C-alpha cells in the first residue's frame, strides 16, 4: 500500500428549499468516487437530493481555543436584538 485514499467531508441537501448539511466523512481516491460513495453511505433511504463533497484538507476551521476572542464579543451586544428597544404597548405590528 503506497498511499491512503484521502478523507472527504460530505454535505447533503435533504430536500430542495433546505441547505446542505454536514453528514459525515469518508475516504475516496477522487471527488467522483467520493460522490458515489457518499450516495451509498449517506443516502440509502432518500436522505438527500443533492450532495457536495469537499476534501477535508481544504476546510479551514476555527480553533476552539479562540472561541472567547471570536464569539464572546457578540454576547454584550444586546442592542442587536429587538427586545432591547422599549416601545409603548399600543404600538402595533412592530
Amino acid at each position, binding site marked *: 500500500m503506497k498511499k*491512503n485514499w484521502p478523507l472527504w467531508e460530505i454535505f447533503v441537501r435533504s430536500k430542495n428549499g433546505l441547505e446542505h448539511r454536514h453528514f459525515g466523512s469518508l475516504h475516496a*481516491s477522487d471527488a467522483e468516487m467520493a460522490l458515489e460513495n457518499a450516495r451509498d453511505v449517506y443516502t440509502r433511504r432518500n436522505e438527500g437530493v443533492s450532495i457536495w463533497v469537499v476534501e477535508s484538507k481544504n476546510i479551514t476551521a476555527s480553533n476552539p481555543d479562540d472561541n472567547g476572542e471570536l464569539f464572546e464579543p457578540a454576547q454584550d451586544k444586546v442592542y442587536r436584538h429587538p427586545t432591547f428597544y422599549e416601545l409603548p404597548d399600543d404600538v402595533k405590528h412592530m
Partner: protein
Amino acid sequence: MSEHEVKKLEEIFEARIARDEKIEPKDWMPEKYRKTHIRQMSQHAHSEIVGMLPEGNWITRAPSLRRKAALLAKVQDEAGHGLYLYSACETLGVSRDELFEQLHSGKAKYSSIFNYPTVTWADMGAIGWLVDGAAIINQVPLCNTSFGPYARAMVRVCKEESFHQRQGYEIMLTLCKGSEEQKEMAQDALNRWWWPSLMMLGPTDAESVHTEQSMKWKLKRKSNDELRQQFIDQTVPQADILGLTIPDPDLKWNEETGHYDFGEIDWDEFWQVVKGHGPCNKERMKARVDAWENGAWVRDAAMAHAEKKQKNLKEAI
C-alpha cells in the same frame, strides 16, 4: 502545561459534560477521554464490519427474492454503520489504516457474538431478532453520549436498526408458522443464539472494569446487568408469540421484582470467545484480512488513476 493547569481544565471539562454539553473533536479533552473513545468507537466499528460476515454467508442462499433483497440491504447497512463509526473515530486523530491494523493484528476487539457460525437459514432470523435486538438496547442510550461525532453516528445507526430486528423477527415468524421441520429449525436457532446474545451485553457489573468512568462520560447510561434484564424482559414475550421456548429452565417471571429471573450464564465460554477461541474467530479474521489484502491493488490503482487525472488536468491548464 503544569499538572495544576491540567487538573483545572479537567474540572471544566467534566462540568461541561455534567451540564449535558457535547464535546467536539477539536475541543480540549483529557488524554484518557480521547483514548477511551477511540477504543470504544473503533471496537464498535469493527463489530459492525465483522458482523457482516455471518450474515453474508446466507445472501446467495436466501429462500426468496424478498428475503434476499432485505438481507442484502441489512448487511449493506452494517457496512454503513462501520463507516459512520470509523469516521467518527478518525476525528480524534487516528487513521483508518491504524484502526484496520489494530483489528487485523488482533489488538482490537469486536463483539464476541460474531464468532459463532450461521449454520441454517433460521440463523438469519435469530440474528436479526436477538443480536440486532441486543445491539439496539446497547445503542439507543449512546444517541445522547457526550462526544458529538459518536452521538450523531448513533442517531443514524439507531434509525436503521429497527428494520434489521423486524426483518429477523419476520423470518422467525414465518418459520414458526410453517412445517414441523421449519419450526424446529427456528427453535434450534434460538437455542444456539440465546446465550451468546445475553453475553453480548457484556460481563456482569461485578466484573466490568470501565463502568464508573463510562457512566460519567455518558458512554454508558445503564449497567450491563440492567441492559441484560431489559433485553430478557422484552424478548421473552416475543418468543411466546412465536411459540418458541427460551432454552433456560430457570427462566421464570418474578411477580415481586416485575422482571424475569434467569439462569446462570456460562462466562467461561464468553471469555474463551473473547480471547480468540470461539468457533469462528480465526475464520472471521482470515476473511477480513484476505479482503483487505486482496483489495490492496484496487485501492492503489484507484489512487494512481486519480493522481494521473490530476496531473493531466494541471498540464492542460
